[in-house]
């Protein structure tokens, strides 16, 4: 267990980034790492831009890191990936992106436009894995398991081969939706392997 590693999870309020951070933290804790996790919440409304940070290592002090310090970034929405790109380590960082767009209110009202080419621009600048996690989730029968699809896509980039992530997913999600989420996890992992 060498240096502290950092992950940034970004998306739109209500997309389920919290479950991803929970799965990650459970896995790291079980493997004996120290873990810190930080999110900003407090606005009740749905639909704003949200971010969560997870850090793990032998001993973690700061719960919050800054620009250029994320080893991995997971974007549940593709424009959010671009918004937070400066947090990613430009040399070694990996971006895992859900190829899916959600309009913001300023876009819906016509004041701004949804930008073209988010994924291409990310891929030009960073080691990027983009998968259609939302579409995969819908095919599996529940749009909500998009977060676990995306976790499947990112888990092999976390650099912790000793952790059995499938097992951790099974332990973290509620019994009722376990099978669905395991399918989602495997589908995401496969899609990422192909996308690399």
């Amino acid at each position, binding site marked *: 267990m060498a240096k502290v590693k950092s992950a940034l999870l970004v998306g739109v309020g209500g997309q389920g980034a919290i479950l991803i951070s929970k799965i990650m933290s459970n896995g790291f804790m079980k493997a004996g790492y120290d873990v810190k996790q930080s999110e900003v919440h*407090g606005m009740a409304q749905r639909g704003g831009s949200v971010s969560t940070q997870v850090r793990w290592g032998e001993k973690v002090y700061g719960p919050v890191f800054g620009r250029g310090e994320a080893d991995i970034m997971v974007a549940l929405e593709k424009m959010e990936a671009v918004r937070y790109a400066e947090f990613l380590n430009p040399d070694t960082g990996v971006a895992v992106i859900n190829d899916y767009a959600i309009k913001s209110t300023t876009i819906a009202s016509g004041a701004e436009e949804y930008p073209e080419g988010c994924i291409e621009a990310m891929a030009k600048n960073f080691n990027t894995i983009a998968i259609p996690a939302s579409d995969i989730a819908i095919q599996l029968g529940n749009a909500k398991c998009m977060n676990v699809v995306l976790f499947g896509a990112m888990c092999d980039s976390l650099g912790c081969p000793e952790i059995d992530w499938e097992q951790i997913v099974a332990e973290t999600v509620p019994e009722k939706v376990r099978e669905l989420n395991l399918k989602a996890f495997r589908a995401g992992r496969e899609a990422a392997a192909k996308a690399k």
Partner: protein
Amino acid sequence: MKHLMSGNEATARGVYEAGIKVCSAYPGTPSTEILENLPQYGEDVYCEWAPNEKVGTEVAYGASVAGSRSLTTMKMVGLNVAADPLFTAAYMGVGGGYVIVTADDPSCHSSQNEQDNRHYARFAKVAMVEPSDPQECKDFVKLACEISEEFDTPVLYRTTTRVCHSKGLVEFGERTEVTPKPYARNTRKFICAPANAFQNHPLVEERLKKLEEYGCTRALENGLNKMELGDGKVGVVTAAISYQYAKEVFPEGTSFLKLGLTYPLPMDLIRDFASKVETLYVVEELEPFMENEMKAAGIPCSGKDKTGVMYELNTQLVRERMLGEKPNFKTVDDIAVAKRPPALCPGCPHRGFFYTLSKNKNYVVTGDIGCYTLGFAPPLNCMDVCICMGGGFSAGMGMAKSFEREGVTDKVVFGVVGDSTFFHSGMTGAAEILYNGGKMIPCVLDNRITGMTGHQENPGTGFTLMGKEAPMMNIEKIFEAYGYAPVLTVDPQDLKAMKETVDKAVAALNNGEHPAIVTRRPCLLIKRIKQPKAMCVVNADKCKSCKSCLKVGCPAISMENGKAFIDRTQCVGCTVCAQACPFDAIEMEEN
């Protein structure tokens, strides 16, 4: 076994373990989850939502006077509201341990200013404890109670957003049962009469000296203050979350003096630490609170010239500003990222009210703090001023008086507060308007909950924090008791009724009457209220692309291929956009 928990969850656990028995608070980000996590301890801890922070602070103080350990929590601006009892409790001292949690919000993630509440400790001359991680959030509550009782002082327990909302591993302890001495009246101590205050002031000054000595000695033994000596070259005095950043970033060999008791500062200890290092830095967020005191005590140090007085720090910023290491990062500049501001939810009951008022440019809206503040945002653009909780009524009064004096006759002022805000401090403003003949219309947007902070009960909702049924206070009857008439109640989602109500109120106002409006419809996100499932769709053949529906500002509607389009995953079928459409092109989907 260790538990992964947020600072706020850990503080709640600390309340339980410290044997605190009475907790009263008003919600406010980032403090809210402390009280929300107390009902799990059942009968061991009584907890409640008070109507505002002043009340919560007084309830907890009363419990302390009676002998119980007690606690109140609030966001930083809440302490402005509760400052009155704080400053006098500081003179009178306590019975049972008395802890006031103030949760500051550097970077204004969800706050109206960036005040540094450490100044309150110095101003009120009370002890201040600052935890830096979830484990300390839990452990320091008990130490705070002990300090409070031993030194006869309220203890300010100061956290920040990142301490409150960051999770880390916490080891639990057992609950300490504290049995208070039998209660006996003590007027010399607990009556704030001038003669007593006069006698109390010297006690307060003496107490600070004793606390300072404690900070230099016993606080080192119990872990509140910590000295970690390195190679003697660089030393860092730090506290709270800044310690975590500095500890991670400064190279091995750096010495640290980490303070958990940050007021009064243990100056002899700091002087001793300073003598052991060649260069002394202070790393703290926001104001140079520690640094200025240290400089005033003649200890050469620096830090604020580098860290700055604004916004929160993080590992990268401390590395850059203190060690001069430029960050290595890339931005993707060829993509114009659109803003993603918060907006009223699809189906929010507040939408119809603001949509209606937005139609008349002569309506002046003095707003207040809550979800409904978002009525200011485009495309509704329906608010003129919003200053603080309760200000919606009283600032409106001032505007109305100014318009009167300046001869402005075409404006109509609407003062707008939410239900929770009405009970917090809107009621005093409502008295003001009627008493002093304000020509304005007070409106309460009653969505049956304290929405913005994540849906807490309040005196109007019929339930308590502990989940028990409670008397449900009726806002219309309160208005009527004051003497308002007519008091008009309306469902804000019915745009026709909404417009008729506003017109009626304006006519009554112009007729010399005293109208008030209450809009009532529950927030969609209240868990215990089931909402019917529905959805609206645009009939593309009827849609004339006039964009009238976009003016309601619902995140679920946009234009797609030249026609209005409703996102099925977001729409809840409230029909407000359908009512705004002049061509009946938006229809309820049969289900």
